[in-house]
């Protein structure tokens, strides 16, 4: 899973001070990951991310939506109005095949990156140097 990252965002978009902001790309990867399990609506995605990150990552929930729209616009997501278990009308987002590919790419990238970052932090030599 992607690690939280400190960030510098414009002041008007700042979340509560003790909460680290998410990079846009990070949020998108998390959305894709969440939706790879099952289609969900905005509220569900927010809860899911909150749960998965162990509440370490509480986002301003509304900022999910610009990210969702951007992904939808790019064709990574599809959306449709549906009904929740509580019989509420909500818009459900699902992953398109393109979105699935994107997720795989991003996950691989994130893993490489986080490994590298982890190594740097642990003071281990890079694999290239080791050889």
């Amino acid at each position, binding site marked *: 899973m992607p690690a939280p990252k400190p960030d510098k965002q414009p002041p008007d978009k700042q979340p509560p001070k003790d909460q680290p902001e998410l990079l846009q790309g990070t949020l998108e990867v998390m959305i894709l990951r969440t939706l790879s399990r099952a289609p969900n609506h*905005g509220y569900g995605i927010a809860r899911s991310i909150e749960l998965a990150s162990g509440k370490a990552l*509480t986002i301003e*929930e509304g900022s999910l939506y*610009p990210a969702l*729209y951007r992904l939808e*616009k790019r064709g990574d997501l599809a959306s449709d109005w549906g009904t929740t278990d*509580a019989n509420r009308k909500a*818009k459900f987002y699902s992953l398109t095949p393109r979105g699935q590919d994107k997720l795989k790419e991003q996950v691989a990238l994130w893993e490489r990156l986080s490994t590298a970052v982890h190594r740097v932090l642990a003071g281990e030599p890079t694999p290239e140097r080791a050889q």
Partner: protein
Amino acid sequence: MSRTLLRSLFSFDPRPTSEVEDEMRAEFDTHLAMLEDELAQQGLDPTTARQQALARFGNPTRLAREGTAIKLGDRIMLQRINLALLLVVGAAVIFLLVHNQRMTSRNMQTMEQLSATIAVLQERTQAAPMFEPAGPPQKLIYLEGLVAMPGAYVIPPEGITLRRAIAAAGGLHPDARSIHLDYGQPDMTDITLSASDDLPTRDDPRLAANDIVTVSSDLYTGIPTFNPETFDLNDSTLLDRLAKQDAPLGRMVSRRSEIKASLEEAAGRWGSDHRDVRSAQVMLKGADTAIRSRIIELSGKLKRAERPNSSSSIPSSEQDLAVRVSISGLVAKPGTYSFAKSASVRDLILQAGGINTDQPLTVMVTRARDGQREGTSISKNALHNPECGNLWVDNGDIVRVSASPEYSTNPVVQPVESPMCYVAGRVHRSGPYAIPKDGVTLMRLLSTCGLRDGATTVTHTRGLNGASHTIEIAKLMKGDAADIPVAGMDAIEVR
């Protein structure tokens, strides 16, 4: 990148902005409602739950704005590009229209100039006798009405005067009564001369470009608003002008001014109610009536009978007939003749007493309706043939019979440089003559023009304002009087 752009260009949300926004709002509302439910389950009261839900969610208005920018940004950009393109195309169309309009008006101007040029050229080709062949630049004068060859004439380099111009146009028709000179220059006042009295005695006015000489059988040419029924008898200028043209009228006018003077004197002495004043008023009224009826008479048919040297033999009963045609030249009795309906040239010549020469003659008809000319040939013998002279004449036409070997609408063609002299009077061919390079003498000139029977004297005027002297033709022919050279601008009048 370009694929993304292409797809977004062709796959943008087609819905109106408000609908897209409403959908986002609905989505946000669901989310907020779910958050509220969650918080309420944690035991918060509804108001606090709502506040906390909003705090966690963020500002829906800002988010909706951001969402619209993401969802419709491409479309808005495309619309802007569209608008910009539309403006550019619109500007181009307007520019083309304006340009086209300008070109059209420029073309129209060119066309107008061309058609004006064509009109002038046509006029020149049709326009009749010229002092010299057409060549730029030409200053024209116009002679119309009762001259033998009306038309546009080119002013020769030395200039021309009224009498010479009339001579150049073949002289006055016997019916001519007034000559109206309409100066082409706006600052000159038109003048009207009496053809019979004024012309020989008065200074010969010089003509300039665009002058119009109108010769008319009417006394009133040049007085455009003149109406004999209503005109003001106290307008002494007009009255004097008319009085000069008719001796009885002159006597009436002077008698009227005597009455008027004594009337004014008596009224001053005794007041307007006095018996003598009233009788003078009656006399004045009588004089007015007499003058008016004399003028009406003069303007009507009787003036023909009054014409000096009248050679016309129209019985007065024929005067109201429909077709009146004037004939001049080599016929026994030139003058004006009337016909009940259209007549042929042959009828007219027979009416005018036939032809008194055996040589073949030229007949030129100047149409009253449009000033156009038509010509034909005729001879004395041919007059017996009813087919001959089968050219119809109509009301107001002027017919000239001359001995020129062939008719032409442009009978006088002269080299540009040649100086001209002008011959009028009792000759067969009056008009302008070019002086040959080696000069010409009076006697040679007269034989060129052909003296008519009864010609006795010739008056030779040197130059425009030079001395003139009269020679008896018999003496000239016998050699008793010296033959003199004729130069440019000389005027020769045979009587």
